[in-house]
């Protein structure tokens, strides 16, 4: 096959998967709920990292594709009463296509202008969700999503999420470590040089954006069913900022970093909310730490610690 995952990483993945699969045994509804949510956010952050970590662009509007996936799935399941097997893939397709459309325009630009345009498009998606009340429910939200019977229940839904997120992550991992993924890293590392080895860098960046959008759509589609509702806020910029912070906190130069960042930030927020009303300050301090101390995130920190312990300096 040629897909060789480092053994340490593979081992960790298996341990995490087994541990997750055993969670329902603990008989804690709370644990099941937060695990489900963390898995969704982890996939969301992993998808964003295809743009940031692999193609080297910054998207300030990634929540748009999460929301498109969520709304499409919810509307098809509920309003049109379509089966999941139709609605879910359609939702993923919709977010992927929307991302491809936006990428067509955004990839003309680079750096901060690219980021600003992604933000502008995301605001447009938000405005549509907000204004198109007859379809999306506007800012009342699209509440009361029909969830297919076979996953209508805490434990079945947990396993549905686990399987979907695991498969999606596996596919994402393959994409990121494929010939495409490796070339994408070259584009990130040196876009000019990448052009001079014969790579159409604009098309590459666009493809990465579309892939990321589609996988964000998967996360969004799951989340809509989990919450039995989709809300305009899921397309709003703070949501994009949050997933960006998750990605950077974990470490954008590592495939699994964003998933770790998602889990860390999610848990931190949950627990902080029980003890302080100043979560923004906590988040601000986390950001300062990332910027000033941990530019390569938690994974970067882990690598540094490991290097020091093994090699010594």
């Amino acid at each position, binding site marked *: 096959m040629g897909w060789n995952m480092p053994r340490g990483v593979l081992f960790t993945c298996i341990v995490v998967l087994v541990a997750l699969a055993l969670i329902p045994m603990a008989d804690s509804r709370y644990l099941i709920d937060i695990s489900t949510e963390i898995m969704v956010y982890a996939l969301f952050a992993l998808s964003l990292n295809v743009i940031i970590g692999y193609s080297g662009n910054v998207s300030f509007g990634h929540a748009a594709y999460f929301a498109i996936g969520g709304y499409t799935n919810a509307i098809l399941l509920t309003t049109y009463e379509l089966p999941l097997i139709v609605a879910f893939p359609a939702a993923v397709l919709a977010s992927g296509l929307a991302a491809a459309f936006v990428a067509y325009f955004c990839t003309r630009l680079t750096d901060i202008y690219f980021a600003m345009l992604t933000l502008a498009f995301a605001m447009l998606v938000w405005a549509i969700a907000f204004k198109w009340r007859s379809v999306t429910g*506007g800012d*009342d939200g699209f509440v009361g999503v029909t969830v297919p019977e076979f996953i209508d229940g805490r434990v079945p839904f947990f396993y549905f999420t686990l399987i979907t997120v695991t498969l999606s992550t596996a596919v994402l991992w393959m994409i990121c470590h494929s010939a495409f993924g490796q070339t994408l890293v070259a584009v990130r590392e040196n876009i000019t040089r990448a052009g001079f080895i014969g790579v159409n860098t604009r098309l590459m960046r666009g493809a990465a954006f579309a892939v990321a959008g589609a996988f964000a759509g998967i996360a969004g589609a799951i989340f809509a069913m989990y*919450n039995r509702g989709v809300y*305009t806020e899921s397309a709003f910029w703070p949501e994009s900022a949050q997933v960006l912070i998750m990605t950077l906190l974990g470490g954008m130069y590592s495939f699994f970093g964003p998933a770790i960042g998602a889990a860390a930030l999610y848990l931190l927020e949950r627990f902080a*909310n029980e*003890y302080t*009303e100043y979560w923004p300050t906590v988040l601000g301090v986390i950001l300062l730490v990332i910027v000033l101390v941990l530019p390569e995130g938690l994974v970067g920190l882990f690598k540094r610690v490991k290097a020091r312990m093994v090699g010594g300096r």
Partner: protein
Amino acid sequence: MRPTLRTTVAAAALVAASASLAQAEIKIGVLYPIAGNGAVYGTPAMHGHNMGVDEVNAAGGILGQKVVSFARDTKLKPAAAAAAAKELITKEGVDVLIGGLSSAVGLAISEVARQEGIVYIATIPKTIQMTTTKLHKHVFRTSSHTDFEGDAIGQIVNKLGKNKVCDIQLDYAYGHDLAAGIEKGLAKHAPNAKKVIDLRSKLGATDYNAQITQILGSGCDVVTSVLWGSHFVNFAQQAKPFGLFDKVTYISGGEIASHEIAGKMGKDYPDNVISNTYELWYDHSFPGHEKFQADLAKRSGKKETAMWPVLSYTGVKFIAAAAAKSGSMDADKLAAALEGLTIDTPVGERTIDPKTHQANTGQFWGPMVKKDGVDYRVMNPVTFYPATLD
């Protein structure tokens, strides 16, 4: 200093730790925007809530058990509120949910309550969907709703004898719902009134010049609106130099007659405003209000209290009464007891309609006028509009 989430939780945890050994307890999950930008509502709401809980406990608790609250911040975001509601149910094991503020947050909590089979008392959200299209057996609303508000506005327009109406609303769920409520109210009570112009501003808008000048240009004699909170403050400050309040009567929902707006605006509060509120600290129209007010003032540390506490307080009292009636905290039994339940509140009797799960929570309406000796406006005369659509 206002009690923070931390102290509330710490207190609850202490109580829980000491009580859990001795006896079982009734757990209430409370969802208000305690932190962040919504704290202007959440903090006073928590005062009322805690006061209600303390009174219930002082009277022997619910079914002989102590009542403990678990408060969570909704961040004014529906998904965050839903996650918090789930956590309260699955981790803390609360028996009942209470609270909510915006329409979306209320509906999101209601959806969790439906899934988990837990009673939810919506104390502030006004969206009409809550008790119509999205109604389920476990959701109850003890606040007013937009059709009541619109109906009152229709009656006031009729009483004023004005018939050229400008409507300005915020472009979001509450604004849309109230605009529809006003349409109905006008059609019913003031059939001669004609809508001259419909204007919408976005939520959080800061510049109203374009709307103000359109109102002035359209020649209407009454403005109906729901620019609440800072929206109203900004609108009023910008409209005054244009002389808008000399030319039209400004009738507003959104409780801008409450003292937290009138008190802070002081002499800047404009003329010719008729608005509503759930409660006024200086108005003792109903028995028991004076004591309620005095107790509340002790908690908030100032005698001019906000109007939100009465809503959260009433919600707690409904739970206690329903539990006493059913003799159980079982969700289905509690829900059955809430249907048709009547209790006494500091602002009058309240009954929950067994069919719609909507309490007949009326509001005080009246013109905001200057009063000798005080540097803010007060409502005078105060008229109570009961929550009936007949």
